[in-house]
C-alpha cells in the first residue's frame, strides 16, 4: 500500500511535469533551433495524446470498477451538458465546478478522468474536436488531480472555502495553460509579444504576460474564475451531501 502510494505520487508528479513542459516549451526553447520549431510543435502535438493515454491507462486499467466507471460516465454527461448551457457568453465556463467538487469527493484519480472526459465528451457532442483538445483535456485533468489532493477538513464551510479558492486559482492556471498552447501559433515569431528562442524564461514570461493581457485572455480567465466560484458556493453544500451519500450507498471507493 505504502509503495503503491509512492509510485502513484511519483507518477502523478512526473506526468504533471511532462505536461507542463509540453505546454510551456516556448518559454524554455533555446536560440539555436528556431528553424526546427515547426517540427518541435509537431512532436509536441503527438506527445501530448501519448502522455494522456498513458495517464488514463494508469488511472483506469484494472483499477476502476463498474460503479466508479458508471459514476464517471454520468457525472461527465451532466458536466458536458452544463458546459453546453454555459457556452457562448464570454468567459462563462461552467465545467469546472463539478470537476472540482467530484474530485474532492472521489479522489484525484477520479478528478483526472473527470477533467479529461468532460472536455472530450463536450467536444464530441458540440463538434469542438481539434488539435487543442488533448491539451485542454490534460489541463482540465491536472485541475482535477489537484482538487482531489485538497486537504480534507471536518468543517463543511472550510471545505467549500478551500474549493472556491482552488477554483479561482485553477481557472487562471487553466487559462494560462491554454493561452500558452495557442501563443506560438497565433502570435508567431517576431513581435514584442511573441516568444524569443533563447531569450530566457523571465524575458519570455514577460512577453507571455503582455500577450495574455493584450489579447484579453485575463478577462476570460476572470470570467471563468467568477463563474466557477459562484457555482461552487451555490451548489457545493448540496453536491457534497448528494455525492457522498451516493458513494456510501454503493460502496464506491476513492481512487
Amino acid at each position, binding site marked *: 500500500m505504502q509503495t503503491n502510494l509512492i*509510485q502513484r505520487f511519483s*507518477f502523478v508528479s*512526473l*506526468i504533471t511535469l*511532462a505536461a507542463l*513542459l*509540453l505546454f510551456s*516549451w516556448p518559454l524554455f*526553447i533555446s536560440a539555436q*533551433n528556431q528553424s*526546427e520549431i*515547426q*517540427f*518541435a510543435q*509537431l*512532436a509536441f*502535438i503527438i*506527445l501530448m495524446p*501519448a*502522455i494522456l*493515454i*498513458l495517464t*488514463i*491507462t*494508469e488511472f483506469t486499467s*484494472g483499477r476502476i*470498477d*463498474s*460503479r466508479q*466507471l*458508471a*459514476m*464517471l*460516465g*454520468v457525472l*461527465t*454527461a*451532466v458536466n458536458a*451538458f452544463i458546459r453546453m448551457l454555459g457556452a457562448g457568453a464570454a468567459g462563462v465556463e461552467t465545467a469546472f465546478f463539478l470537476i472540482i467538487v467530484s474530485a474532492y469527493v472521489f479522489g484525484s484519480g477520479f478528478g483526472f478522468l473527470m477533467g479529461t*472526459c468532460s472536455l472530450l465528451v463536450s467536444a*464530441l*457532442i458540440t*463538434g469542438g*474536436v*481539434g*488539435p487543442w483538445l488533448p491539451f485542454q483535456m490534460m489541463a482540465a485533468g491536472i485541475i482535477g488531480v489537484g482538487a482531489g489532493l485538497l486537504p480534507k477538513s471536518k468543517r463543511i464551510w472550510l471545505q467549500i472555502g478551500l474549493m472556491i479558492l482552488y477554483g479561482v486559482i485553477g481557472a487562471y492556471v487553466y487559462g494560462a495553460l491554454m493561452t500558452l498552447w495557442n501563443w506560438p*501559433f497565433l*502570435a*508567431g515569431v517576431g*513581435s*514584442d509579444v511573441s516568444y524569443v528562442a533563447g531569450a530566457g524564461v523571465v524575458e519570455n514570461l*514577460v512577453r507571455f*504576460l503582455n500577450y495574455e493581457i*493584450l*489579447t484579453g485572455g485575463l478577462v476570460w480567465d476572470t470570467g471563468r474564475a467568477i463563474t466557477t466560484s459562484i457555482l461552487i458556493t*451555490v*451548489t457545493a453544500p448540496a*453536491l457534497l451531501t*448528494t455525492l457522498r451519500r*451516493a458513494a456510501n450507498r454503493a460502496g464506491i471507493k476513492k481512487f
Partner: protein
Amino acid sequence: MNQKRMGNELHPVTWWTLALIAIATAVISRSVAPLLIIGIASLVSVMLLEKNWARSIRLYATLAAVVLLTRLAFRVLFNFASANQDIALQLPLLEIDLGLGNPVHLLGSLSYAAIDAAIVDGLRLAVIILAIGVASTLAKPSQLLKYTPAAVYEIATAVTIAINLAPQLSTSIQRVKQAAALRGRSHGLGAMRSLTIPVLEDALENSMHLAASMATRGFGRTGETSLAKSLWLRTFSLTSVALTIIATYLILTLGLFNGACIAALTLSLVFSVLVLRISDSQKIRTALNRKKLGMQDVLLLTIGVAFFYAVSRGWIA
C-alpha cells in the same frame, strides 16, 4: 441517424490517420501550395462522401476562417520588425507599457513578407482544424471508440455512456423544471438547487443501476493481474513519461534532429506501446464487428504518407 453517410466504406481509423498525416504535413510545410492542396482535398472528400456536408463542416470552416483572420489581425496589431522589406501598409506606431519589462509596440509598418508569413501560418492552423473536422464528420469520433486499444477501453466506455446520456438530460431537466415550479419557489438560488439536485440525484441513482447491469454482464472481468505484471506496467509507464520529459528537454535545448533526442522520443513511444500491450494482454475481452483495414484504406494511407514525404523534401512548394 448514421444512415446519411453514403459510399463511405473506409475504416474510421483510416480517416483519423489521414487527418494526422495532414496535420503533420501542414506543420512542416512552409508555403501556401501544400496547405491549399490539403484544404481543398479535405473539402472535396466531405462534399463527395457526406450528404449534409455543408451543415457538418460549417462549424469547422468557420473556426478555420476565424483562426486565419485572427492570425492576420495579430500581424497587423502587433508590430513585427520589418527592416529592409517592402512595406505594404504604414500605420502609426503605438507604444504600450504595461509595466512588465519592455514596452510593447503596436501597429506600425506592415511588410508584404509579414502578410505572406501570416497567411501561411494562419492557413496552416486553418488546415489543421479543417482536417480534423473532416475526419470527425466522416468517421464520427464516437465510432472510433470501438477501435480504442483495450487499455483505454474503460474510459471509452465511460465516454460512450456520457454521450448516450447527455441528450437525455435535457428532457430530464425540462421535467424537473416543470415539476419544481409546483413547489412554489421559482427564483434565486433555491430554484437553482431545486433544479440541479433532483436531476443529479436521478442521474446518480441511474448510474448505479447501470453499474449493476454492466457488472452482471461481466464488465470488469480482467484476468487477475499478477503482482509482477503490474510492477512492470508501472515501471514502463514511469520510464515512458520520464523519457518524454528528457526528449522534450533535449528538443528545447539541442533541437529535434539531435541523435539523443530522436532516441529518447522513439524509446518513450516504444515504452508507451509496451504499456498498452501489457494492459491489453490481461484482458479477455473480444469485440463484435470490428472492421479490418481494406485495400482502399492502405492505398489512401500510402498516398498520404507519400504526400507528406514530398512536402518534407520540398518537392511541393
